[in-house]
């Protein structure tokens, strides 16, 4: 959708940049469009890598934007675990130095359980969000005081 480059009247979040994208095997575009738009309206600078983004591409974006405060990865098609196969290595090697937040539909099938969330943490994800509406509060909390690149952020949405 053609949308003006910069929001006017957005809250003061000058200079805060996030990297956004959809997981490697996933081409769902709508939520990605809407979330990018929403974050910009809230004052963030969003580097949106769009759909079908492998971990390496997120890492490259981190290299281009070292000030990025978080990498936000959406996934709807259920296959996020395999899509994040290389994440742990990218984090360990420092190629993705900031926290990684994920959200969307995070397992295959209609009955969801907590195990898939736990496996995401095991893969190197810092925070699993249950709704896009939690993004800004979590980013703000992270900005305000959490230890940034390492560890998970203790917020309510964390199970």
């Amino acid at each position, binding site marked *: *959708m*053609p*949308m*003006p*480059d*910069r*929001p*006017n*009247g*957005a809250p003061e979040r000058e200079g805060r940049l996030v990297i956004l994208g959809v997981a*490697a*095997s*996933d*081409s*769902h*575009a*709508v*939520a990605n*469009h*809407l*979330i*990018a*738009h*929403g*974050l*910009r*309206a*809230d004052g963030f600078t969003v*580097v*949106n*890598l*769009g*759909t*079908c*983004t492998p971990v390496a591409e997120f890492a490259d*974006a981190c290299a281009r934007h070292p000030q990025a405060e978080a990498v936000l990865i959406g996934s709807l*098609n*259920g*296959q996020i*675990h*395999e*899509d994040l*196969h290389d994440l742990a290595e990218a984090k360990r090697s420092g190629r993705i130095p900031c926290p990684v937040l994920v959200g969307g*539909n995070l*397992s*295959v*099938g*209609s*009955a*969801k359980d907590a195990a898939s969330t736990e496996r995401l943490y095991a893969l190197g994800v810092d925070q699993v969000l249950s*709704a*896009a*509406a*939690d*993004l*800004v509060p979590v980013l703000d909390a992270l900005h305000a005081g959490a230890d940034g690149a390492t560890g998970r952020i203790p917020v309510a949405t964390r199970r």
Partner: protein
Amino acid sequence: MAAATPTLEESAAYITRSGKPTAAEVLARARTSGRPALQPRCGVGGHREMAALLLELEREGAPDLLTLTIDSHTRLRRFESAERALRTDHRTLNGYPLVTHGWQRGRELNELVAVPLEIRHGSPDPRELFATAVASGVTSFEGGGISYNLPYSKDVPLADSLAAWAEVDRTCGELARLGVVMDRELFGTLTAVLVPPSISLAVSVLEAVAAAAAGVRCVSVSYPQGGHLAQDVAALRSIPLLAARYLPPGVEVHAVLHEFMGVFPRDRGHAEELIFYGALTARLGGASKLITKTYQEAFGIPDAAANAAGLRLASVAGSPLLDFVTVDEAAVGEEQEWILRETAEIVEPVLSAPRLDSAVVTAFAAGRLDIPFSASRHARSEVIPRRDPSGAVRYHSPGRLPLSRASAERNRRLLGGPADDASGASLFAALRRDIDHFPLLFGETPEGAPAGPSPATPGKEPAP
């Protein structure tokens, strides 16, 4: 796994020998009967699990065709990921990795059920998958060089996907000469969310013309239910007219409805109302086939029981007891006239170019062809769709599509005013409402709005 793939001749002989009806035959029968053939989407990673799923669906849902839905790794030729996921935990795959399982297992599945199989996927480059499908005895293959590129990948050049699909279509032509008519379903559903009918049909016309030129003999033109009865019926009924206008004789063309493909209501009852409405739309639109949804749509890939329930519910809409149900023919006529006109305005400049493939590539680059909510960089997504007060999908802005002034003005008028009436924040909010049309219609609260309070102004995606 990797036993030598049979030759095309061997596969054709296998299919003929099998005695199973082909998808094309089932579709022809359905069209004659006036009761749309029913088909679910279905695919799980494990082979045994896939076999069990097909059997349960055939037993409990009595479909006319069955599907192998392919996982997203395979779609994008990430075969290594498909293989690793299959090895590690097949339940993490969102479809059946047919290439990884191989054609012998494909034949096993094919022989397990009485109805023909179709491959449903989303591969910009489907060549390995198609070869495996044909060797498996599958007689219907979904997709196209445009419709399986733009909604399904980020950065595959259209020229590449068109070339890959042209190979598939030429092979279908050879198969026809060998006596096996493959059904080639085009994915007119595109990005599924607020797709204006004339965009869906225009893309299908272009793909159908290319397919027919390559030798395809049976084309299924699928169209996604938008939710406005007269508009949807008009779109479905336009398909044979468009075929007569743009395709050579001797190509069988079927209209196919995909039950609503956008954001589904979460409540089971609401979802079932929408499913039934879709099935009735297919019937009234004269579709040869209906692809069904399930009451679990909003949550995830459905289990077999829900999938079978969706088939049974759709089947009720085909009942002879509902012969009395009619649609407002005047409204359908009016919609159809404009759908045909808009579609002509979009496709005819492209069709008049000397080479179709390159004309398509150029047109998308220039925005003269376009789709909303593209997953790919190779469409501009400058088109802005909206729902009008009656729920029909209109062009809020046609972007650079070559719509006539009359068409553009009608869209604007039906939306209730000049295009810039709704822009910025209010346009964004309105679009969200249109996307959430059915949940909202049923009084469901949409999932938490993304990122923070009411946004100020919509922003264009900058190139990363």
